[in-house]
């Protein structure tokens, strides 16, 4: 990092440091319910960890997140692939998906709760709905943007429809699909929090926020916000790196090499 960049970063951290400093100094003399000391949040987090509550929350939330993403992205990929491959399906279904997408997700919650109960299934379905559309639209757009020339090469080589899809369409749509997954992962995390908060106490990470609100424990609420933010940040990072690590790197290289 150049000295200029370092200096810039230091300047950028002045405001957060000042904010934290004033907060700590203020709470030394004016500790109140509404503005608890940040140390309290640290202690609360430690207590949650030591009583194994935090680990339980974490596992529950990650499970919901994972299954929701799995369901939503795989369905989105399949449907997007179909819409991209067939003009006929595209004409009948794409406008409807576009309309559907504009319905705010949280509006479905009361209906989902009636259908699936205040259970994990409702939450997983909501997260899946959130993850579904970015992948669908990006897969579709990626396939539509495959240059016609590439497909003609496939025709010249006498490839079957499936071979053309696997060897030409998929590799050249991959960058689009990649951005779709990134959007799904980040939006999915936001929707996870909504699904947990709006279907009441449930053993997930948002319980920290919910219990904190019920007991007027802002130290707990603050701790919950920081934990959810850090995890969101981690998933953001993961989403952008996802395609260059481990098995997925092999996958994307393999598709590219086969072409």
């Amino acid at each position, binding site marked *: 990092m150049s000295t200029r960049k370092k200096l*810039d*970063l230091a*300047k*950028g*951290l*002045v*405001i*957060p440091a000042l*904010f934290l400093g004033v907060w700590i100094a203020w709470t030394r003399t004016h500790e109140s319910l*509404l503005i608890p000391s940040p140390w309290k949040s640290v202690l609360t987090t430690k207590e949650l960890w030591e009583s194994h509550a935090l680990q339980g929350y974490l596992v529950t939330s990650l499970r919901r997140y994972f299954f929701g993403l799995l369901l939503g992205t795989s369905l989105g990929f399949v449907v997007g692939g179909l819409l991209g491959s067939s003009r006929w399906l595209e*004409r*009948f*279904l*794409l*406008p*409807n998906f*576009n*309309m559907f997408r*504009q*319905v*705010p*997700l*949280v*509006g*479905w*919650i*009361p*209906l989902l*709760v*009636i*259908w699936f109960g205040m259970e994990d299934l409702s939450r997983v379905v909501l997260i899946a709905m959130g993850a579904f559309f970015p992948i669908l639209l990006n897969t579709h757009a990626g396939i539509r943007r495959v240059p016609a020339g590439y497909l003609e090469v496939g025709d010249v080589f006498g490839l079957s429809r499936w071979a053309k899809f696997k060897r030409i369409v998929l590799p050249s749509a991959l960058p689009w699909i990649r951005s779709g997954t990134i959007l799904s992962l980040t939006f999915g*995390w*936001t929707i*996870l*929090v*909504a699904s947990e*908060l*709006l279907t009441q106490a449930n053993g997930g990470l*948002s319980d920290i*926020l*919910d219990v*904190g*609100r019920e007991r*007027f424990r*802002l130290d707990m*609420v*603050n701790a*919950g*916000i920081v934990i*959810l*933010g*850090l995890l*969101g*940040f981690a998933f*953001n990072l993961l989403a952008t790196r996802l395609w260059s690590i481990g098995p997925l790197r092999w996958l994307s290289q393999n598709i590219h090499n086969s072409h």
Partner: protein
Amino acid sequence: MKRLLRTILPPLSVQLAVLLAWYLSGKYELVPTTLLVPPERVWETAKDMWSTSELQTHVGWSLRRVFLGYLIGSGAGIVLGAAVGISRRAQVWLGPTLDIFKQVPVFAWAPMMILFFGIEEASKLAFVAVACFYPVLLNTSQGVQSVQSRHREVGEAFGLSRTRIFLRIVVPSAIPSVLVGLRQSIALAWMAVVSAELLGAESGIGYFMTYSRLLFQMDGVIVGVLAVGAIGILTNALLGGLERWLVPWTKEVA
């Protein structure tokens, strides 16, 4: 006319098929009515609610909250986004702070807002404002930064003052991007208000849905979902229309 046939009829036929399936499932009781009430009963309920103006009252409350929260949140987003976009100094000093708070999933702010501002209006407006803030901020700063330097240079060559360069060159070229941000954030604002009302309220469409669900009035819940969806689609169309009217030279991005 031929275009109409090709673009409108196919999706419409799918919608009609779904409606028909819904109607038939009610008629032959394929699905218990506790899970899905037939469309004609939803229609009756909606009509009743309209004539007693219950529906309008709830929707009116929600829209009022969205409007005020949106005004605050996107206003703050435009001002800060423009500052960060124009001045490198603002970017250096403020950027990391804005990035840090951006990491928090929007909904995680809701419980804090309730403790800070109470369960009444103020916390809902604050939450909507927070939900609007980032899309507008990011798109505004991007729009301002993407102003081509040669356009600026033309302004300088003509000896325009800094304010005039800003008003005549920076603002017009940033507007398309700002409008994209405004459209993204109206969707988030609407989602935020509905969730704030689901969390706790005494009016508004979200409150009405919770209330109907607790009384097992499935028709009410469906009317609520339809109203929420219709308003979501309408606001998006409205902002889309605004874009086409104000900046007709940019291609609309779905």
